[in-house]
């Protein structure tokens, strides 16, 4: 990470470091585990640093998120290749990762939404996180995921619909159990 000169380092700190939160958030939702997200976000930042000289202005957040995303997918390919091929996995769906943190979450809806989001295929999860949590414009999403803007709209549509149906289904299941 040290091959930047003082001036580049300053530019990097100024332009890229403010987006470390965005980098971590995207990695967290793509990888579904905070420990993995930390490792991969750090790796992505190292890469960003290595290729920073190739970055000539423009949207630094979109640039960084693009690197984060690619690093996440290549990490998933190496460590959990099955996940990359999953369209929608019933097995993944009911799985909750029991960390002290997640157990302490009092907000039930948050828990339910988290589980629902995590059950979606990575590509759907990614586009929802970019739009709904990160507030990216279509143009930024297109740049980050390198898909055409038209495809952004149709992917968002499918992702939203799937999230909606997962939420309504799980709700119905719970209601049925209560009866």
């Amino acid at each position, binding site marked *: 990470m040290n091959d930047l000169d003082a001036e580049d380092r300053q530019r990097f700190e100024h332009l890229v470091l403010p987006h470390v939160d965005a980098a971590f958030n995207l990695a967290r939702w793509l990888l579904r585990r*905070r420990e993995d997200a930390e490792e991969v976000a750090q790796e992505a930042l190292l890469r960003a*640093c290595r290729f920073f000289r190739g970055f000539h202005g423009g949207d630094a957040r979109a640039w960084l998120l693009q690197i984060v995303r690619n690093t996440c997918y290549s990490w998933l390919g190496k460590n959990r290749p099955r996940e990359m091929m999953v369209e929608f996995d019933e097995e993944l769906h009911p799985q909750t990762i029991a960390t002290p943190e997640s157990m302490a979450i009092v907000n039930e809806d948050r828990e339910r939404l988290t589980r629902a989001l995590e059950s979606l295929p990575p590509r759907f999860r990614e586009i929802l996180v970019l739009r709904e949590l990160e507030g990216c414009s279509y143009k930024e999403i297109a740049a980050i995921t390198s898909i055409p803007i038209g495809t952004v709209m149709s992917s968002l549509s499918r992702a939203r619909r799937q999230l*909606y149906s997962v939420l309504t289904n799980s709700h119905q299941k719970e209601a049925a159990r209560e009866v």
Partner: protein
Amino acid sequence: MRCDFADSLLQGYFDRELSTASAAEFERHLQHCVHCPVELVDMDMLSERLQLAQLYEAAPASLKKKIRANLRPVGAATAMSQPLLWHWLAAAAAILLLVIGGWRVNSVLRTDDYQAELAEEIVDAHVLSLQSGHLTGIRSNDEQVVKGWFKGRLKFALPARDFANEGFALQGGRLDVVDERSVAVLVYARSGHLFYVFIWPTRERDTSPRLGSRQGYQWVDWRKGRIEFCAVSDAPTSDLQQLQRLFTN
């Protein structure tokens, strides 16, 4: 049943991404569509739920600290991180070899340079894209059709050529991203093997072809006329070299 607009304009309208004209068009549609108004409300409720749940997770302080520590100049760093240390050891080893060695050093350095590193990342990205099955692009044997598809999608003139007469039949092309740059990929077939040629603009000078292999794939990388090419295939290297010569001639 869903409305035809549900997958396109509806999303753009909801996200305020439509032009004024398209938004007006969609509003006219909303007046007599029975599905879209309902879906808009559903989307709005979902979006609000996502906001209220505060799902955004900021980076932990420990991560920020690590990243900042990595940024510090070498001299200022008190404890060198493990991977960095290995880089330095590797660099020291390379220098040592350079001092001791004769011609053998060349091959050591050659596998350690940027071009080779990039070629290997291309192979990795390629294998990954085959696994994930997300290959969007154009399927055609006609070089004009393939050229037409890439037009407007690339910022450089793509040398898309069919070499069917020479044994490499053009199959189509697609766009990919390797190391945060957009690259064009041309696909050729020859006797049961597929050849993927990754193409992107470069500022570097021309280089003669360099070879390597990784994950069961062979690659040949070369630069010509401010364009870099990296051909990847599971076919023998000699076939790749033949394709490379067709491109450079």
